[in-house]
């Protein structure tokens, strides 16, 4: 997409409206980010929709009948072992802190998603924001062209509310890219890679660039009188949001969503699937300063995803390959761009799966003892924190719950253990109030 007199647009707005001028700041800002990676932290959530099996990934039980078909492999860190299907991650295990003592109380997809993604049980009238919105609210910078919260490959059918900005309002809601429930969000490009689309970022069909420019010009002129007399409240906010949308359409930043310029080899390493390409997009977004990006893997890819009630091992082997390619490459790529230090990655689903294998060679929902992984910036990698019993059915050491996990994440992001957002009633609402697992913080 090319520019639609962005400079002129921004100038005239600033004149009529007194807002921050959009023109001219971006290159400097980008330079500042590149020069000082500590200046700003980022978070990537790798959301494993359906509930991944801990026993077949990061908490193997090879000596127990619950252990299943997969073999363990040694990782870069002596004593820390992963599944054989996660070789790239094994090689980067010095960056990973595996939390094996997670124990929660929701075993339903919808409720579990809400619990893990907001930190709260789905009850009562408060619509809690999902963690992406909460963190975006904390970490967003006002002058961002790109949205502060991007969600790639999202599958919301288990529970819409688990993906909503809740009381923070749509402003902090995710910008959905290649959402599994929005038709036409994914198509294949000429190289066979899935093309991930931002809804409505492109001009409507049949509207030429020149005509769009004309429309915006007319819009701007017609706006000025109304907005100038009501700049304080909703009118000012409305205008600013539009300004932001127009800026995004026209900006170089929008190229973050266009993966066609990336080397084909790198794209292949990430994996020719929505998750892999989503991880690549995540790196591009982080590079441009987006504070929170989420990439989904699991039910969004069709089929049952991680919800492996039957035929667990074939499914998990396939998913592990996608996961390992996408995540492993992402870690390496971030590191090469000098961004891994400032980017904290959280890997989790809504719950784990039973260590016991059911008669259909499947594993069922299991919130009692499961695993999540923290990686990257602020995290003391190369360790497993917590331990489950030999059969994997109980947490024996390092028990943590959803609030502890989120508090630890907030700490790793440098936000303190309980950063608060304002609820609409003006009361401060902590994002989480759990215990910070100091052992896994760098």
């Amino acid at each position, binding site marked *: 997409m090319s520019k639609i007199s962005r400079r002129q647009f921004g100038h005239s707005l600033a004149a009529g409206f007194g807002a921050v001028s959009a023109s001219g700041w971006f290159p400097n800002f980008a330079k500042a980010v590149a020069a000082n990676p500590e200046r700003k932290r980022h978070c990537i959530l790798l959301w494993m929709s359906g509930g991944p099996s801990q026993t077949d990934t990061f908490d193997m039980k090879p000596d127990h009948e619950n252990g299943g078909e997969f073999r363990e492999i040694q990782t870069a860190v002596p004593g820390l072992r992963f599944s054989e299907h996660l070789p790239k991650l094994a090689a980067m295990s010095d960056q990973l802190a595996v939390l094996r003592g997670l124990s929660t109380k929701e075993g339903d997809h919808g409720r579990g998603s809400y619990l893990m993604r907001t930190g709260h049980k789905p009850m009562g009238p408060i619509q809690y924001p999902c963690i992406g919105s909460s963190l975006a609210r904390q970490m967003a910078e006002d002058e961002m062209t790109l949205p502060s919260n991007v969600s790639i490959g999202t599958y919301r059918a288990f529970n819409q509310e688990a993906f909503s900005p809740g009381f923070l309002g749509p*402003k902090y809601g995710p*910008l959905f890219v290649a959402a599994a429930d929005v038709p036409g969000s994914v198509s294949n490009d000429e190289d066979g890679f899935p093309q991930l689309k931002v809804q409505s970022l492109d001009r409507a069909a049949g509207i030429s660039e020149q005509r769009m420019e004309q429309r915006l010009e007319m819009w701007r002129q017609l706006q000025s009188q109304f907005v100038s007399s009501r700049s304080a409240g909703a009118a000012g*906010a409305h205008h600013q949001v539009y300004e932001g949308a127009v800026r995004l359409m026209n900006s170089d930043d929008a190229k973050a969503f266009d993966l066609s310029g990336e080397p084909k080899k790198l794209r292949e390493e990430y994996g020719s699937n929505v998750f892999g390409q989503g991880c690549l997009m995540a790196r591009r977004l982080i590079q441009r300063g987006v504070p929170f990006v989420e990439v989904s893997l699991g039910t969004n890819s069709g089929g049952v995803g991680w919800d492996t009630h039957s035929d667990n091992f074939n499914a998990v082997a396939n998913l592990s390959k996608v996961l390992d390619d996408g995540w492993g490459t992402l870690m390496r790529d971030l590191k090469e761009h000098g961004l891994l230090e400032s980017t904290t990655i959280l890997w989790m689903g809504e719950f784990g799966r039973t260590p016991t294998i059911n008669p259909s060679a499947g594993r069922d929902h299991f919130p009692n003892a499961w695993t999540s992984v923290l990686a990257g910036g602020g995290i003391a990698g190369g360790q497993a924190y917590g331990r489950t019993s030999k059969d994997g059915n109980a947490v024996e050491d390092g028990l943590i719950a959803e609030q502890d996990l989120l508090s630890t994440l907030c700490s790793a992001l440098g936000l303190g253990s309980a950063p608060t957002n304002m609820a609409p009633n003006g009361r401060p609402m902590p994002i989480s109030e759990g215990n910070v697992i100091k052992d896994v913080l760098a």
Partner: protein
Amino acid sequence: MTQDSNAYRNPQSASARDASRTDHPIDFDDLSGVDQGDVVDDDWTAEEASHFAAMVADAMDAPAVPKSLIKRLDRGIHSRWGSSPELSPSRLSHVSEIARTSVKTWPVVAALAASLLLVVFMLGGAERYAWATMVEAVKQQGVIQIASGDTVRWLDLSKQVVGRQTNESTEWIDLRDRSVSTLPSGTPSVQRHSLEYSGELSTELMLAAFLLDQPLSDETLQRLSGIHVVDQEWLSPLSDESRIHLNVLLESSSADRYELSIELDAQSSLPMSVQLTDGGSNVAATQDFRQLVYLNQSVEQLQLAHFGPGESVAMSDLTPEVERVDLTDAGSSTEIESAMGDRVTASTDPARAGSNVERDSSVESLSSPEIVSLPTGAANKWVPVTVVSRSGEEVIRAVDLQLQTLWEREQVQPVAAASDLQLLRRAYLDLAGRTPSVVEVREFMKDQSSDRYVRLIDRLLDSPDHASQMAAVWRSFLIPEGVDLDAFGGREAFERWLSERFASGEPYDQTVRKLLLAEGRLSRSGPLLFYSALKLDADQIAAKTSRAFLGMRLECAQCHDHPFEPWTQEDFWSYAAFFAQISRPRGELENVSTVMQVRDVDRGEVMIPETEIVAEPRFLGQTDTENDPSELARRAKLADWLTGPDNPYFARATANRLWSHFFGIGIVDPVDDFGVMNEPVSPELLDTLASQLIDTNFDLKSLIRSIVLSRAYQLSSGASLVGDQDEQTEKRLKLFAQMNVKTLTAEQLYDCIAVATMLDQSEANASDYSINRFGNGRREEFLQQFSAPASNRSEYMAGIPQALMLMNGSLTSEATAEQNSGLIRSLQAPFFTNDQRIEIVFMATMSRPPRKEELALVANFVPEDASVDQRNAGMADLLWALINSSEFALNH
């Protein structure tokens, strides 16, 4: 004192009492005729006589004794002693004769005295009256006024402000900082000084000085310092049970004594009139009772009205603004009493009231008599709304006046009124949920009559779009977004049900009852969707209903006592207990199913979490468990309480919600957070609205009409006051002195686009147009993407994704593209000039014709000599630009 009184007196004060005083109310006149011969009176010494008199007096020192009890006593004494003094009240007369008569009948009387003591004991729970309860009652009130001669005095005990106006000057004393401000008549300058008196300023002292008619000078304070009650007695005149006579003997530190005779209102314990019967050597006793008047205005309002800077106020200016308890109109006060049942009332028996008081007939109050107990402070102590019967027009005037005084008090200058066309659009959006069609705009503009706005409101209130709009508003807080109800008919089915209720004009309390008492299988949808959405969970229903109908976030007390408000965890669960006996599988339900049904059963309890305590049903703000012995199901009892006119929360919460719908913010805001942390901007205003709601039998339309015809609603949303500061704007918005710009809900936005572009209907230009809000798939899809929490409408909540969708999305393309937009195609008729076309696009979107400069601006883009295609494209671009404009996306 009066002839027909029965008895009274406070035991604690016996010692200080002069037994021989002449106004003893009980007369045993007839005792002289009883057993006269049997009683030895010859050797009755004077000492014994006075001792006995004191004893009798002690025995009488009790609350009012009901007639029936006296009769029973009478019978008891008769059977025991063979004869009775026959205490029938009609025989009672002056007490002066007690000693004389009782001398002859002393054993009988002694027995009687003992019996009465017993009665006193037994009646321990009966109402008592005392100085202290009166002081408490006064503290709950706002401003009291006493006028005598040329002097008017005011007291606000809670705010500790005293005022006094004479022919010479007006004086206000703020006792908190002990500052005195005096405005001599005829001069513009206020003189200020501080009180020198440094002693304690007790409530007693302030009230005493006020009632004793003493100017609050250093001298008075010094003299009255340390004043306290040394004796008191009360009596209830038989002829008027609503009145209590309280006699109080006060003594200051310097041992000066003052005796006051006060008439109290029996229900509220508020003083109605006062007489200084003995002022000792310091103060002359007053000859008559002085009437106390309770004002509707706050002390600040009074001060502003009569003490504005640089403003001299003559007495004659004062009176019209004073609202007073009108004690003369027998008809109205009885009406009010019967209308209010046992609610707090100041109505009094006119025959008894202040017979010695000259009333100023020029005092005409806008509102009817009321002693208001306003919704401030801890919500668990709120009392029911004092209902004042006002016509719709009177409510509007009262609202305007209350806001006017609020603005004056807060020193806020309201902005100019909105133009009629702005009001047209605003009223359509708020009342009908959409903008007017071009035809509707034109018709309004054609109508040049002065009451076109009023008639517009009345027409809109009766339109089908109003019912469905209200249904959408109600649905948004009764069933929030994000709950999957498709299996039960979806949110839409609920909205449809609500819409039918609103369209039928059913009283709102009835609708809420139907909702609370819904029965049957969940598959029958309608009101049952409310239960489906809450999964039939007692705690969820409790949380939702208390928010939606009572304006309280009770659920904050679910796991522990409420952190800010007085609600305890027990309060929450005792309230939830009303929903415990609904048929429902045990345990936590993931999902409810359509075959489940809601009906009342006779089992089921809720327990306070992590305890073994079963919560008994108890209404909010009450201390006793619900103990109605009837067979009614718990839900039914709750519905009776919740929707009743005596409920202290229901009408206020509903009025506040409606107000907030029209102003973008509530009088209490957030609307569902009543309590000490969140006081109403104007409690008077809130109660005026709540009163109308109750008075009209919960007719929402009447209340809505009052709100939209108020001056505040018709103010502009734009501010162009010179030198305006942001804080000033903020203050104006908060105090309704400027209309808030409200964001459109997703529903409104879709409907506006649909109306403007003639998206869904080709008939959009008919004058009886109404929108179809149900069964529209495209609308549903749009709503899903735009849905925002229902909370704050004065904040624009949407983000970049939504803006992108409106700029580039398929809905906008379809609605604006020249090939398929109904509006653009309708503009192709060759007889239109370009200006006319532009005008139509403006009226369709902005509900107004374009301004001259706008016309010129657009003409630059679409020249008159453009080809048909260019022209169509230009009109489409204009439509696109306007639909994406702030003016279109907001309600202003």
